[in-house]
Structures are given as structure tokens and as C-alpha cells.
């Protein structure tokens, strides 16, 4: 029997598992999380008195439905929560579970590793109290905690309004929603956004609610500094009219859209290509997620599409896998899934313009800003390394000369901004700056795990 492994138990992974099961295949579902749902549809940890219906708002029914579907299938598949896949060698996955390094061979692999916040650094962003925007939501959903009492939401992302709404609903003070993309650019992206008018209206409603509650909602801002002595005390920005404005706060949620977790896709052999709209390197796959021999990609880990697209693409990847195994599936259903995924991804491309990655702002950051928070490498060190004789002109070489991207996170946080700095200093296209190459382990592995795995 063909062994099918799915990595990631978010909406894409769950839909892939469900589709496979419906066709008589029992996949192994590996997930680093202790509970299924991924980041967006994350379940509260046990015992938390959190009203998820209120928190999820219009998405509550989808959230509930996904978890109900998962509960009905989890007993029929080999579900292994708390399992990190830290490397791939040929058709062998290297796992870490309960502090032990083990291996698992596969014949077919569905990678649905999801996404994380894309971060642009700014002065003061390493202060305690600055967190990723998605992280601010995770703190609430997973732990029932706010990241602070008075929170500023900064960056450029539809999640700014959503997270701010969730914080306000539960009683936190939102001091500002500050978006770096100018309003006129949002208008220009309208045609693409009409691919999903319901989502568009929902986003506008969130902003409207915030404004009615007296929360400043600003567009076209320039982040100037997060200030404080050992922790966040205020956020300083320049607004679209050029005025400096300081907001007293004790936490900042920072995010510029999402960035796919592509490490495992790369190690499994997927080709990566630079995407000009997102300014990210994305693994290449056909419309159904085929990315190599026995390799299928789905969800935000392939390209940013949101939860609905993740559900569709997870099912699509499973259908592709089944078709490659010679198992016939419902052609009409597959065609409908393709249309749905394609429409939702077009919407996300629109969003990537309406909530733009702030290339010019990143390139204009002062030298003393920390770029690599793991190794504490400043922008000035990058610029200095590149300016010297025989200086590096692509990101891996910059990493070798400066340690930027060499730390525990392996460039997950600093990578996108590093690409922009390298492209900007070198006056080259984004693609020419290259991308940080991945080699396992994709996350830290303890010596003790290697020892425990051998015994």
C-alpha cells in the first residue's frame, strides 16, 4: 500500500486527509501543533473560557465545521500531533516527537505547512512587547491573553482590522490601526478584490467599527520607532500628511501579510521561483498542487490564498495524488475546486497590492536598526559588508559575511527584509538578490533528541 503522509493539520491538511479517506486511503497526518486547526483556525488550549463563535465572527461556522469534520475523521487516520518534521532525505522524513528523533518513509507527501507573519523591521522592533500580528491573535486564541493592555496594530494587512476587532471585543484598548499602504493604492487594487466581495465588505466593516469606536485608523503611515526602556512604551509614526504622531501603548502587533513556510517543500525537491506580486519566493506546483514525483503542496505554504483557498487546495492536492495513483475522482468536483482556489488566490494577489509590502520604507531604514533579531545584525552591518571591495551581492553571501539569517530561526523573520535591502543596495531586481537556501534542520533539534532516537 502506498504510504501517504500529510504535513500540517490546518485547513489544507485536514481537507487533504478527508478527501483521501473518502477514497479509501488512510494518510498519516503529522502536525507540529498539539491541536489541529493550524494558525488561523487554531483551537483554544483546554479549559479556556473563550467564546470562539464571537471571536471568529463571520468565519465561526467555517471554523466550527472544520473542527467537527476533523473530529469525525481523526479516529480513522494516523494522526500524530506534536510532531516536528525537521528534515527530508530522499523519501524519508526526519521527525522529532516527545524529544526523540525518528524517521518515517513515505511514498507520497502532501505538504501543508501554512504561513507566518511577514515582518518588516523598524527602530525598536526587538523590544519586549512587539509581537507578530498573527501572533497577537494566537496569544488570544491559544492562551486567552492579550499581548498588552493598550495595543497598537501596525503594518499592512487585512488582519490588522480583524485582530484589532478581536482585541476590542474582548476588552483590550486599541490605540491605533496604522497601515503603511496609502489609501489610493487600495482603491487601485479594487478590481482584484472584487473576486471576493464578501471578504472585502467584511474588512471594511471591521475598519468602520473601529472608527466608530474612536480608534484612529490611518493609511499611508511611515513607522518611525517603537520606544521604551526595556519594554514598549509608545509607537511613533509619521502620518500620510507628514505629521509625527506618538501613541502611548504597551504592545505593538506588527505584520505585513503572510509568508509561506516553504522550508519543507524546498527540502522535498520543489523548485522555488520569485513572485513579483508578493515579492516572495514560492514553491512551484501545477494548478492542483503537484510539485514533484510524489510531492503535493497545498494551502498558504504553497501560495497565500487564505483559509478558504487552503481548504480547496488541500482537497485538490489529494485529488491529484489519487489521480496519480490511478484512482478516479469526480472531475466536476475537481474543476469546481480549481475555480474556487484560483479565484481566491486572485483575490489575495489583489490584497498584496492593497496591503503592500513596504519596499521603499525598508530600504530607507536607518543603519542602527536590527535586521536579524537572532544574531543581532544591524542594517548598517549589511550595507557596510556590501559596500566593501569584493562585497557580497546576494543574500546567502551576505549571510556568510554578516551572520544575518544564521540564527535559530534560519532567516524566517529577517529573510524578506534582507532580500529588499540586498536588492536595494545592489540596485538589482528582487529576484536577483536570491533567497536564503535551506538545509535541515529547519528548526532547532536538541542533541538529546538524537541520542534518544538512537536508543
Amino acid at each position: 500500500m502506498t504510504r501517504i503522509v500529510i504535513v500540517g493539520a490546518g485547513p489544507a491538511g485536514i481537507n487533504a486527509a478527508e478527501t483521501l479517506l473518502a477514497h479509501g486511503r488512510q494518510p498519516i497526518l503529522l502536525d507540529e501543533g498539539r491541536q489541529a486547526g493550524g494558525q488561523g483556525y487554531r483551537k483554544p488550549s483546554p479549559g479556556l473560557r473563550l467564546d470562539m463563535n464571537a471571536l471568529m465572527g463571520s468565519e465561526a461556522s467555517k471554523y466550527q465545521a472544520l473542527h467537527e469534520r476533523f473530529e469525525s475523521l481523526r479516529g480513522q487516520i494516523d494522526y500524530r500531533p506534536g510532531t516536528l518534521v525537521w528534515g527530508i532525505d530522499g523519501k524519508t522524513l526526519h521527525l522529532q516527537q516527545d524529544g526523540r528523533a525518528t524517521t518515517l518513509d513515505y511514498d507520497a507527501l502532501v505538504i501543508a505547512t501554512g504561513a507566518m507573519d511577514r515582518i518588516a523591521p523598524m527602530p525598536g522592533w526587538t523590544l519586549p512587547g512587539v509581537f507578530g500580528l498573527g501572533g497577537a491573535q494566537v496569544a488570544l486564541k491559544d492562551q486567552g491573553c492579550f499581548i498588552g493592555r493598550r495595543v497598537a496594530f501596525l503594518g499592512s494587512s487585512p488582519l490588522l482590522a480583524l485582530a484589532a476587532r478581536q482585541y476590542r471585543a474582548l476588552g483590550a484598548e486599541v490605540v491605533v490601526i496604522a497601515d503603511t499602504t496609502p489609501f489610493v493604492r487600495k482603491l487601485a487594487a479594487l478590481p482584484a478584490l472584487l473576486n471576493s466581495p464578501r471578504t472585502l465588505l467584511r474588512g471594511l466593516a471591521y475598519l468602520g467599527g473601529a472608527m466608530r469606536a474612536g480608534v484612529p485608523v490611518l493609511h499611508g503611515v511611515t513607522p518611525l520607532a517603537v520606544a521604551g526602556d526595556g519594554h514598549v512604551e509608545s509607537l511613533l509614526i509619521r502620518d500620510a500628511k507628514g505629521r509625527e504622531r506618538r501613541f502611548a501603548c504597551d504592545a505593538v502587533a506588527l505584520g505585513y501579510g503572510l509568508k509561506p513556510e516553504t522550508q519543507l517543500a524546498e527540502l522535498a525537491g520543489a523548485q522555488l521561483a520569485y513572485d513579483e506580486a508578493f515579492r516572495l519566493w514560492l514553491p512551484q506546483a501545477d494548478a492542483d498542487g503537484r510539485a514533484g514525483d510524489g510531492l503535493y503542496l497545498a494551502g498558504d505554504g504553497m501560495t497565500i490564498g487564505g483559509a478558504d483557498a487552503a481548504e480547496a487546495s488541500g482537497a485538490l492536492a489529494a485529488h491529484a495524488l489519487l489521480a496519480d495513483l490511478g484512482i478516479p475522482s469526480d472531475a466536476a468536483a475537481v474543476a469546481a475546486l480549481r475555480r474556487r482556489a484560483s479565484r481566491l488566490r486572485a483575490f489575495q494577489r489583489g490584497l498584496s497590492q492593497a496591503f503592500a509590502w513596504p519596499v521603499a520604507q525598508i530600504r530607507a531604514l536607518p543603519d542602527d536598526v536590527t535586521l536579524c533579531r537572532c544574531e543581532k545584525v544591524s542594517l548598517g552591518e549589511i550595507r557596510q559588508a556590501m559596500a566593501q571591495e569584493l562585497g557580497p551581492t546576494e543574500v546567502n553571501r551576505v549571510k556568510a559575511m554578516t551572520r544575518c539569517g544564521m540564527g535559530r530561526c534560519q532567516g524566517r523573520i529577517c529573510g524578506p527584509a534582507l532580500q529588499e535591502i540586498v536588492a536595494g543596495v545592489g540596485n538589482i531586481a528582487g529576484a536577483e538578490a536570491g533567497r536564503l537556501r535551506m538545509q535541515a534542520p529547519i528548526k532547532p533539534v536538541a542533541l538529546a533528541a538524537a541520542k534518544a532516537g538512537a536508543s
Partner: protein
Amino acid sequence: MTRLSADVAIIGGGLIGVWSAYFLAKRGQRVVLLEKDVVGAQSSGTNFGNLRLQGRFPGQYPLSLRSQALWEQIETLIGDACEFEATGHLYFASSEDEWRKVEAYAAVSESHGLTIEHLDHVDLRRRYPWLSDKAYAATYSARDATANPRLVTPAVARAAKGLGVTIVETCRVTELRTGDGAFSLATDTGLSIDCGQVINCAGAWALAIAEQFSETAPLFPAGPPQFVTEPFPYFIRPSVQAVDGTVIFRQIPRGNVILAGYPRTAADPVANRAPVPLAKTLAAMRHLGAAVPALESCHVIRVWSGIEGYLPDMIPVIGPSLTTPGLFHAFGFCGHGFQIGPGVGLCLSELIVDGETQTPLAPFSIGRFTGAVEADEKFRREFDATPAAGNKP
């Protein structure tokens, strides 16, 4: 088409190439250095960073010691210390049999004037309480050192450039001809060079050049796998090596522990890749945890390798071509080129400018491969199985 004329053309921008360029320029030579990628991209930039004097091939000590003297003044020479640190080197045995071997190595080192401390089990426990109790005894050489290989080759290249060397990166030599006591080279970037002498220090890619001149060596590519942990409080001062080769490690003052271990990995010089099999990563981690139990909770965060040329007798080719006057070879450094890099560059500059060098290089002649080659004991230890000798890049 750009035409250059030079005294010496150097093929290969690794550590050997840039130091050769540096010393030749110091002697007033006009030098062009050609590198297919960027300087120090392969094993020169990805090695462990050991400047180890203990346990070297006996015939290499004059060269090694001369080279160490250059390392010790690297900041004066090139204006950059490249994280050079006189860390010392601990060579430990885990059994009485191994200890006899370590003491034999030490006798050779001492005969060349190196000061070696002999540490029995009690000394070891007292001096290095973090080392596993299974360590039986060790020798310690204070003059052994470490440096950061990522930084060294580019820094020497910059210094050479400052002395007038022309350094051309991302440029492959496509043609190399000789006649009338001179050479002409052409590259894939449209550059042509006329010169009097050529140094072939193209690492794992050097054999193709030697064979053009009817010389050969059983060179094959491999990668030394390297691993690094998260930063930990700094407590391991010396560079440490198990004599059985299972683990070599050092901690930098930032706190990261760098480790390496045999066997080495296969490398693909065509695709320019030397991926590290994950079983090797796990094995290296187990060996480090066994050697330093206090590191068991520490995490490995990054793994890398680079491509290097190896020879079955585990010593390099260094010296003049035996068929072609004006051509010099320096390749196949078998995992220990970092320490002797500056010395090799200095010797090559002397061979070219003075016609001779005070340092004995006879053991490293390319002529030694005319008959059958015996694999060194180190060779058997450092590789999974005998790779196809002469596996051409």
C-alpha cells in the same frame, strides 16, 4: 573581448589562490586571479576553521609551522584578524590503544619543536571537567588556533586587490594554452589573458587542468559536513578532537559550538552541491553529546558543507608541473588546507619569483601518482566507502 597581460594567472579563488596572489603581489608580480563563483565559496569558506598543528602528516611540519607563523600575524598582514584565536587544541583518546597513537603523533610534533602537554585522565578531569569521563587521556598544543573561514578568503582577496591584483569573480576558464614559454587563457566572460606562469589551485575542479598537460592524480570531490549549535554560555576554550575522528568541535566566544565529524559526504561538483545526509547530522550530534554531556540540552540550528578535492594518500599536490614549465599545481588538500593555506601561497610565490623555496615540498609532488597509490589509514577512516578514485568533476 578584454585582453590582459600578467606575470601570473591564478585559476581558483580559494584560500590557496588568494594567498598566492597576495604574496606574489608583494614581490611585485602582476597577477590575475580567476574564480568561477565568488572567492572562498567552497571548502575555503565552509570548513571547520581549525588551525591545527597536532597530528599532521610528518613531512608537512616545516610547511605547517611556517604557515602558522603567518596566521599569527594575519591582522598585520591583511588588516583583518578574521576571528583568529589562539585557542589551543586538545587531541583526546578514549582507550589505551588510541592513547599510544596520540602519543606517537605528539612525538612527531615535538621533534619539529612544537610544545605538547601530555594530560592523563586525572589532569583531564581537572582541566576540562566538561569533557566526558570516557576521555582516557589527551595531548594539548597551545599554539594550535582557529579562525573564521567565512571571512578569511574574502579578506585576503581584498588585501591582494589592494596590492594591485586583478580579481575576477564569476568567470570560468574555458581555454588554457601554452607555447614559447608563455600561457594564454580565455574565459566564458570574454576575457583573454597572456601570462608567463599559471597556478592551478582550482580545488575539486583542478584535475581537468592538470590533465590538459598530461598529468594526473586520483582526485575526487567530497564535502566536509559541518554543524553548529545555538549559542550557549562560553565554556569550551580549546578546539577539541577525538582521535578516532568521530567528533571535532570548538566553541566560539559568541557561544555557538561548531562541530564536524567523519565520514565525509559525497559532493556533486557539477551541480555545485554537497548536501549533508541527515543520518550524519544525527551521528555528529550523538558524538558531541557523548563527548560533552553538558551540551545534551543544546540544539543544532544549522548545517552546511562545501566541495573539496581529496586524494587517497590524504596529502595535497603542491609544486611545479613535471611536464610544463611555468605551470604550478596546488590542489587536493584533503580537509586540511585551511591551516597551511598562507604557507602554500608563500611557497608558491617563492617558487615562481626565486625559482626555489626553503620549505621542503617534495612529498607533495604530482609525480607520486605515476605508480599504484596506497590509501592512507586516515582515508579509510574519513570516508564511508572508497569513492571512485579519479571521479572527475
